[in-house]
């Protein structure tokens, strides 16, 4: 074994963060900073980093989360081990969970049922634990292009690392972030959340719906142009407004 304290394993649903046995938080943070600096090109924005719940305290997890967010990596605390990550001795007590594993986001695309709906009955106690954590856990990540006829339907927010093609649908209770071109139908805040928004690198959808409002693309195809900048659609003064953003 090498003398690394922090190890990052690639798994199907993202990266898994593992800590060496008995490592202190200070040492862990130092090494993560070094890794982030060394691999600044490797950790592309939108990468999902999973860490085991219980391997560090809540406060420490929160600090790590902030640290990763600074480099654009999504940090997520999972309650169970990601399939594919190998065992590595960690001395700290860890909650070995017998609960159902978090479904990989991709499976949600095929299934009509929403991911949280399936998880919720299995872990009711954990959902109430902390609202900040839940937001991270409940985001549905789709790591592929959504093609015509495919649909994501969830109560939580959605992150798509890929395009949303014409004929595809996303219906989300929260917001929708698309790291790619959006040409399909997107409905954010589908259960009445007026504060939900839609962000995409190129926002040219057939329809945008936010909460109970609908906006559609212009009828004249000449007016639809591929914008150079990411755009954000949200509700302002009772109508859907699209504005360019930096990210």
């Amino acid at each position, binding site marked *: 074994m090498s003398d690394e304290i922090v190890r990052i394993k690639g798994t199907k649903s993202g990266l898994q963060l593992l800590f060496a046995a008995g490592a202190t938080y200070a040492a862990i943070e130092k090494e993560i900073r070094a890794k982030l600096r060394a691999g600044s090109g490797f950790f592309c924005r939108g990468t999902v980093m999973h860490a085991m719940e219980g391997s560090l305290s809540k406060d420490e997890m929160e600090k790590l989360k902030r640290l990763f967010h600074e480099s654009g990596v999504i940090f997520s605390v999972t309650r169970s081990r990601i399939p594919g990550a190998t065992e590595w001795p960690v001395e700290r007590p860890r909650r070995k969970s017998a609960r159902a594993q978090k479904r990989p986001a991709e499976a949600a695309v095929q299934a009509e049922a929403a991911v949280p709906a399936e998880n919720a009955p299995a872990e009711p106690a954990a959902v109430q634990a902390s609202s900040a954590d839940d937001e991270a856990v409940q985001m549905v990540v789709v790591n*592929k*292009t959504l*093609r*015509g*006829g*495919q649909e994501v339907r969830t109560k939580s927010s959605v992150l798509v690392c890929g*395009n949303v*093609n*014409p*004929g595809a649908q996303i219906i989300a209770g929260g917001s929708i972030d698309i790291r790619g071109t959006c040409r399909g139908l997107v409905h954010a805040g589908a259960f009445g959340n007026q504060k939900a928004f839609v962000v995409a690198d190129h926002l040219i959808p057939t329809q945008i719906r936010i909460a109970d409002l609908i906006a559609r693309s212009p009828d004249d195809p000449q007016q639809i142009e591929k914008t150079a900048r990411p755009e954000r659609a949200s509700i302002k003064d009772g109508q859907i407004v699209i504005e360019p953003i930096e990210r």
Partner: protein
Amino acid sequence: MSEVIVITSGKGGVGKTTTTANLGMGLAMRGKNVVLVDTDTGLRNLDLLLGLENRIMYDLIDVTQGRVPYKKALVRHKKVENLFLLPTSQVKDKSAVNPEELVKLCEELRKEFDYILIDCPAGIEQGFQTAIAAADVAIVVTMPEISAVRDADKIIGELGRADKENIKLIVNRIRPQMVESGDMLDMDDINDILSIDCIGQVPDDKMVITSTNRGEPCITMDKSTAGQAYRNIVGRLLGEKVPFMTFPKEGFFSRLKHVFGM
């Protein structure tokens, strides 16, 4: 190492069967043992394109239902002797074959042939599901037209759902002049939406129609631009690096004709 390739599109009339016939002929002319399997039961055309209609004795349904061994149903091509056709029935419909039967048949064919090309029916129903069941590689054929691209996108999604990861794209019937004048989707638009590996761009060519009627795939014609494009695709399938064809801009004479309003 044999390979099962399915040629599919979703939309009808984009040139699945033409592509199957030409690629099959091309691979056979390069010395490979090739069998073409028509799964468009009830609407078979592949035999016509190859000019083999009058030689059919048994069909795919006879084979999958165990009436004859597959070797009896194979039709050898008139000129290219390592090209075979396994035709389908014109009287039955697509429910006559199921995916398991086709997978089993392809396993047998793999022992004898280098390439097994499956001509898929249009649509996304049972016929499509059957045709893709055995495939290692899927070739999606589309046209530079919005509905064909939309259907191709849907098909790529369906292929992904069936765990077919190796998907290639052929864009058929491109009219360079219309692309030039912005009246037709260009390759960038198509790649932008479909974002899969493109292995061929075939121009619209009158010779395709004459060759279809004659029962000789246009890949055999030296002068056909579509034939040249298909030859390039065959090269790419065999692992060669062939640059894409550049379409000639509108020539001097045709521009002159425009000027004089001819």
